[in-house]
């Protein structure tokens, strides 16, 4: 039972990391139907924001708290720039957009390498996040619980924003039917930028959270991004709930597969599972219903 609970927590923890990195991706993919391969690099920018803030503010607790909003803004602005300069110019060419954003990812990685050096850097975790905490008889690292909380906060904030605010309503309108939304006086381009700011910003927050797990380097985004893509593909586009279910499901399953086999075989099993799920639900678990063909 203890093993089960510990493994379940490990799975939820992995799921929360997946969800943090995939949440912004699900937003932008749902909005524009394009995969942003540079999303992982927004995570990386979050990591380096935490690093830079710590160079300035030596108190690790304060710097962590400061880094969260700063990373949100930094990654968000970069996301808007990417959308403005590249993605908005390539409408109707989703695959080309995917490749171009991969080029951007390559560029950003090299910029990070030139500024901060190729070796990984360490960000000291706040003292009050050191050590384990007992929850329901299971001992968990406090840092992992913190990531879980950050993830929860992001999901709640994003869903409230989408469901309760005028801007969220407009974003949902554009996701549902862009042409109809635009004839109703909603600026599609402006909503795209808003979504990109939000989605990329969440990636930045994810980056700060990841620094709690260990040292980070220029390619940190790459190690998480493939799994994040899988979450979006399984979860379906345009629904936050789909991403939540997919991330938690894949996280928990992977942690149990790891227990039964090993880490590399677990990945393969997860992939087989994803392909199987797509057999039943080709558009993902949850998706906005449309009557369009494509």
């Amino acid at each position, binding site marked *: 039972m203890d093993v089960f609970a510990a493994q379940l927590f490990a799975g939820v923890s992995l799921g929360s990391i997946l969800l943090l990195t995939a949440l912004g991706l699900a937003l932008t*993919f749902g909005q524009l139907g394009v995969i942003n391969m540079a999303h992982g690099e927004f995570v990386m920018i979050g990591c380096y924001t935490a690093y830079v803030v710590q160079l300035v503010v030596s108190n690790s607790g304060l710097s962590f708290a400061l880094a969260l909003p700063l990373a949100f803004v930094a990654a968000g602005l970069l996301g808007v720039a990417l959308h403005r300069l590249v993605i908005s110019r390539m409408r109707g060419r989703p*695959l*080309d957009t995917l490749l171009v954003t991969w*080029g951007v990812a390559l560029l950003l990685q090299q910029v990070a390498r030139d500024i901060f050096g190729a070796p990984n850097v360490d960000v000291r975790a706040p003292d009050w996040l050191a050590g384990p905490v007992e929850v329901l008889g299971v001992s968990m690292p406090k840092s992992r619980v913190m990531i879980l909380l950050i993830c929860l906060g992001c999901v709640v904030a994003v869903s409230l924003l989408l469901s309760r605010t005028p801007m969220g309503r407009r974003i949902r309108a554009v996701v549902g039917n862009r042409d109809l939304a635009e004839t109703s006086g909603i600026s599609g381009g402006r909503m795209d930028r808003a979504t990109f700011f939000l989605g990329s910003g969440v990636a930045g927050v994810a980056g700060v959270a990841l620094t709690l797990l260990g040292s980070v380097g220029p390619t940190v985004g790459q190690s998480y991004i*493939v799994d994040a893509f899988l979450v979006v*593909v399984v979860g379906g586009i345009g629904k936050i709930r789909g991403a939540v279910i997919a991330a938690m499901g894949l996280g928990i399953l992977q942690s149990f597969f790891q227990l039964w086999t090993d880490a590399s075989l677990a990945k393969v099993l997860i*992939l087989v599972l994803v392909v199987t799920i*797509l*057999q039943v639900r080709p558009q993902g678990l949850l998706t906005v219903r449309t009557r369009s063909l494509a």
Partner: protein
Amino acid sequence: MIASTAAARYALVVTGLAGLVAAPFLVSDFQLQLIAKFLCLAMVAVGIGLVWGQGGLLTMGQGVFFGLGGYLMAMHLKLADAASTGGVPDFMMLYGTGEVPWWWEPMRSPLLTLVLIVALPAGVAAALGYAVLRRRVRGAYFAILSQALVAAFALLLVGQQQVTGGTNGLNGFRSFFGYDLADPVNRTTLYYLCSGVLVAMVLLVWQIKRSRFGELLVAVRDQENRMRFLGYDTATVTLVAYILAAVFAAVGGALFVPVVGIISPANVGVVASIGFIVGVAIGGRATVLGPVLGSIGVSWAQETFSQTFPSGWTYVLAALFIVVIAVLPGGVASLPDVVRHRSAVLRRRPESTHIPEVSA
């Protein structure tokens, strides 16, 4: 105008072929090995040109097939080298139990290895392609799935060090089907083998492009729904191209092993797999020669500049990739067209898969 482009194309083909034949007499052994390596990588590019350029299916996971071919060949070479010393490859003594796992055994036979190099990747591609394409999962979804596949594949190779050599991969081959790999004469023969295979692949793609199947492939790329309404099984059309591309990649991988002397997860991973696409995009995805020339060009530039200017080269590569895909989707091959009538690039983009939403 048209006559002059045709003449230019003939000139290009003739010079290219003459260059291929004459290369061993003109360059050093080391350079010849490099060229042979570029040719192997170009084989993957030819396949990507077929499935992505003409079929519209972006696959970011060709590393899986390149790796399957490469590792199968490497396993055979390892076993053949070890035949005189007890039949157990050296690295297995080092990391593993010193016993050859059962699934290595078929690779003792040269013939079976060659069959598997074609059959296994074709089977994997058929299974994945059938499962995914039948449910009309295409576009970005397919690209992501293929990338996840290659990520899992590379991870598996690293994780199972006692049977795959781990991060180091498989290396240190002495002979290739009984021929000593250190002998320059044999190396030249190997180079000609690579050239011949690549030329055969290009000819096959050229023939496909002229055939009815080639027409179907392009039609499915541009208007899949219309083709379905006309009664064509669109999934099968794309699937055939995907399987062919997988076999091309596997053969490229299999020849890469004796030429370069190593295959490791770094040669097949996520980054390597996207690397295959770069040359295709720059050369011109929808043409016959574009992918080959683009791939060889990028490989050459990478070899030349990445050592001297590692940082600068990455910027150049990334910028080139972004600019070509965004502004010149037809690649360098479309440059003459674009120059001739500049609006051409706007009128026919290769990826015109966007269909206006039709309400039922």
